[in-house]
Each structure stands twice: as C-alpha cells, then as structure tokens.
C-alpha cells in the first residue's frame, strides 16, 4: 500500500480490531483478497475468523481499522447496503427460513435484483441448478439434510448476485463424499466471476481450492501465503499444536 491512490486489492482489510468488552476477538488484522481468487481464512477455533467475517459483512462495527471493497470504504456500512453493492455472506450456523420452501428461500436473495416475483423465482431455479439443489426446490427448507442446508446457504447468497462471496465453513459437518461434491461447486462459482473468501477447517479442501491463505490465531493474522507455504510455516504449526510444537516436529523428522 503506497501513496494515496486506491488500494490495489479487491477486498482490503486494514488494521481491523474488534473488542467485546475486555476480549479482543480480532487484533489489528490486515489482509488482501485478489479479484477473481478463492482466498482462504483459516485458524484454530476461537481465533476470531467469524468475527472478522461479521465485521467485513457489516454485522459488527470494528473497534478500529477499515475495510475497502474495490477501493471504496465500506467500514461499518449496514449488511443490506453491502449486499446491494455485491457483498454476500453465508452463516457458519446455517440460518434457513425454515417455514419456506427451498425455492422461496433462494428467491429472497433473488428479490434483491429482481422486482417481480416471476423473475425472482426463475432466478432462484437457476441458482438451484448451479449448487445442485434443483431436485429439492419444493421441499421445505427444514426438511433438508445438513449438506442440503449448506448448499442452500450458498444458493441464497449467490442469488443476490455478489461480486464477493464470504463462505463461513460451508464444508463443516459434511462427510468426505459430500465435501467432494461441493468443492467443484465453489470452484464453478469463482469461474463465473465471483471472488470467494472462505473460512474453512477442512484442509484438504483449502489446499485444493485456495490460491492464497491467511491464518488467523488469537485475533492476529500470523501468516499469509499459498496453502503449501502456510501449512509448513512454524508459526502456523505452533498456533494449532502449541508452543514449541514446530521445533519438536522438526526434531522428530530429523531424528
């Protein structure tokens, strides 16, 4: 970041700090997401990943720091405003509109860009095809399996036609074959021109999908790089396995 020109990054998070009373959930986090990329955000439980997402998506106001999308300051803007300018998120704990059908659920997202019901419903069907929910359109959302609900989260967010999609652990709780099914869906979303920032614990998928990974631990970004770089970084190993773990592993490997 040099001079006064616009930040080159598509999404630029700069020095975000979020305190809840005495607890510092996110501490001076800075990261970039390149346009058209799939970028990962990983870290141990309680590292502050979801809080950082909430700040980016406007659900929490940061204590300090700024968020910029395409060079425009979006810090602290309300979630529905952000959805309008093209930032969509999913929830780690899925939040379906339980009383509605899958089609109606997705249509709520589609209504952001379509004023007419018929157009919104058509858009919803189209999105359902993209995420593999086409055969469940008329099911009540409450009747979906966990995997189905995760797909529904993605579908609704996609229906708002975002530029940037924040995925919060869409693979968590899925079995390996379900994960294998959904990985290409995420890749196809990116290939359609949507930039993806994903929180994920399933490393196999992170290694597979992400070009860049940021690691958050105890509220700080401790490492950024390609997936291969990140998983071998001592700081990252220690964040997951405890202080001194990197050295011990090194020692064990050399012995």
């Amino acid at each position, binding site marked *: 970041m040099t001079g006064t020109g616009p930040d080159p990054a598509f999404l630029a998070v700069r020095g975000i700090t979020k305190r809840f009373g005495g607890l510092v959930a996110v501490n001076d986090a800075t990261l970039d997401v390149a346009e058209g990329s799939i970028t990962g955000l990983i870290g141990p439980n309680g590292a502050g990943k979801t809080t950082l997402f909430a700040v980016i998506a406007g*659900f929490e106001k940061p204590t300090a720091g700024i968020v910029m999308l395409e060079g425009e300051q979006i810090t602290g803007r309300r979630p529905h405003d952000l*959805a*309008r300018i093209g930032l969509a998120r999913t929830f780690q704990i899925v939040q379906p509109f*339980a009383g*509605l059908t899958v089609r109606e659920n997705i249509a*709520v997202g589609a209504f952001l860009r379509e*004023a*007419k019901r018929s157009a*919104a419903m058509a858009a919803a069907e189209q999105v359902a095809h993209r995420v593999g929910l086409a055969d469940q359109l008329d099911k009540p959302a409450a009747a979906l399996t966990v995997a189905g609900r995760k797909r529904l989260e993605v579908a609704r*967010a996609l229906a708002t036609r975002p530029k940037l999609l924040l995925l919060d652990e869409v693979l968590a709780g899925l079995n390996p074959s379900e994960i294998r099914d959904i990985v290409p869906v995420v890749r196809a979303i990116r290939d359609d021109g949507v930039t993806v920032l994903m929180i994920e614990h399933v490393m196999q998928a992170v290694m597979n999908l992400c070009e860049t990974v940021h690691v958050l631990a105890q509220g700080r970004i401790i490492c950024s790089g390609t997936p291969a770089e990140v998983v071998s970084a001592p700081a990252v190993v220690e964040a997951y396995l405890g202080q001194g773990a990197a050295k011990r592993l090194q020692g064990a490997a050399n012995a």
Partner: protein
Amino acid sequence: MTPRDLVPIIAFGVVVVAAALLVTSNVALNFLVFTMIIALAAQGWNLLGGYGGQFSFGHAAFFGTGAYLTAILQLRFGMGAYPAFAAGIAGAALVGLAIGALAFRSGLKGSYFALVTLAFAEVFRVLANAAEITGGAAGILIRLEVNPANFQFADRGTFLMVAGSLVTLALLATLALERSRLGAQLVAVRENEAAAQALGVDVLAVKLRAITLSAGMTGAAGGLYAQYFLYLDANIAYGTWISVEALLAPIVGGAGTVFGPVLGAVILHGLAEATKSVAGRIPGIDLVVFGIVLILVVRFPPRDIPGLLRRWRR
C-alpha cells in the same frame, strides 16, 4: 397472481353479496357485519403479525384512530363521510408508522414489541377518555342522516355489502402483498432477521412499510365500525377488546395466510353466538369460548385450519 388464485376471493365476495341479498333477519345481519369488521381489523393485524412475525398487542391504537377520525372530521370539521373515512385510514397508517418508527428503530422485538404497542393503545385510550374533542367519557355520536352519500344505509344488507366489499379488497391486497417483493422480504424477516439482512433486506424499512399498511387496514375497520354503530367511546375505540380480537382471529384461522383472519373471525364469532344461544344469558360466556379456543390453538397449533382438516382426513 393467476386467475386461479383469485377464485376463492371472488367466491368469498359472491357469498357475502348473496348473504346481503338473501338474509333478512336483523340479528343475522348484525352478526355478519360485525364479523366483517373484525375480519378487516384482523387482516390488518395479519399483515404485520402473520406475515412479518411482529406480534402487536395494541392494534386498538389503529382501530380507534380510524374510528375517531372518521367521526370527528364529520362532526367537528364538517367533512363528508367518505373523505373522513379515507382520512381515518390515512391517520391510522401514520400512527402505525410513528409507533413503528419508535419501536423498531430501537430494535424492540417479540414480547417487548407487544408490550410497547399495548402501552401506546392504552395511552390513546386514556387520552381519548379525557380529551374534549373525542367527547370524553361520554363518547361521540355521529348524526343519524340515512343517506348513501353519508355512508349510512337504510338497511343492514347494504352495509353488509359495503363491509364485505372492503374485506374482499383486503383479501386481494393481502394476496398481492404475499406475491410481492415486500411480502417475500417480510416473511424472510419473520423467519430470520439476520439471514434476511445478509440477503440485502432492509429490515427496518420492511417492518415500517408493514406496520403502516397493517395500521391503515385496521383503521379502515375502525372507520367502518363508527359508520355502522354511529357511536364511539374510548373503551370501544381504543379498548383492549379489539386488540385481542384482531390477533385472536388470525391466530385461530391461520396467521400469515390470506384467508386466516376471515376464517378465524367467522369461527370465533360463530362459536360465540352459538354458545350464547345455547347457554342463554350467562354474561361473558363468549369470552370463555374465546379463551378455550385460544388455549386449544396454542396447545395444538394447526398451521392453519385447512391444515387441521387435512390432518383429520388422514
């Protein structure tokens, strides 16, 4: 909206008109007109409570405002009955917007919202009971001048036709809302506010629109009441009874459905009348029936009465 969706509503309109033409008993006509007024008030509640999930316990505030404005504008300001009725609807809608702005802006939900609306209705009741312009505790009489131009009719059948037409219009408006973007967003707010926000729904704006429409519709019921009975006092116009009626009917008949409020109003008042005729003059017996029905509905929530019927048929 396809023609097929309109069939039940048109059928309803035809039934009401037929009843208005065929029924001659004044008791029966009275019952039907009163049920229509309740159905209209309840449909208003349904827009906000049924579709939007914001349970108001104070729709009397809107009913009373519609009723008082209709009466006062004619009596004290010499306005025609129909303009006064329209102004009553607009005034009720404005009161709705104002209460909504205060309650929703401060993020009140659930029972807190219910309590605040109840408090507003009570404040209106106390004020109307004391103010001079409302006739105070003595109430207010609309001058009896039977003439269709004065929104007063020689026979109850004609009034039933007018009331039934207004309910039919309310049904059409509800169906249109259900099929609109606002309707979808309103239901999304009811089901999950955070998720709705994430999908670009401006939750505050949606709630404010809903409470404005809701209040206007319930205000129309108030104006209708004023024109039918030609008498109001604070306990009628702003009394808790109408807040309870307005929410009980949709809950019994199916909240968040087009026909729920009408169905609920017919069931509740049908039951109440039937009990009165069977049990004779035990005071308050109709309220006992309401209470029993409410307990049953809360204990065994049918998604709506059609849902219950389907369950029985199996």
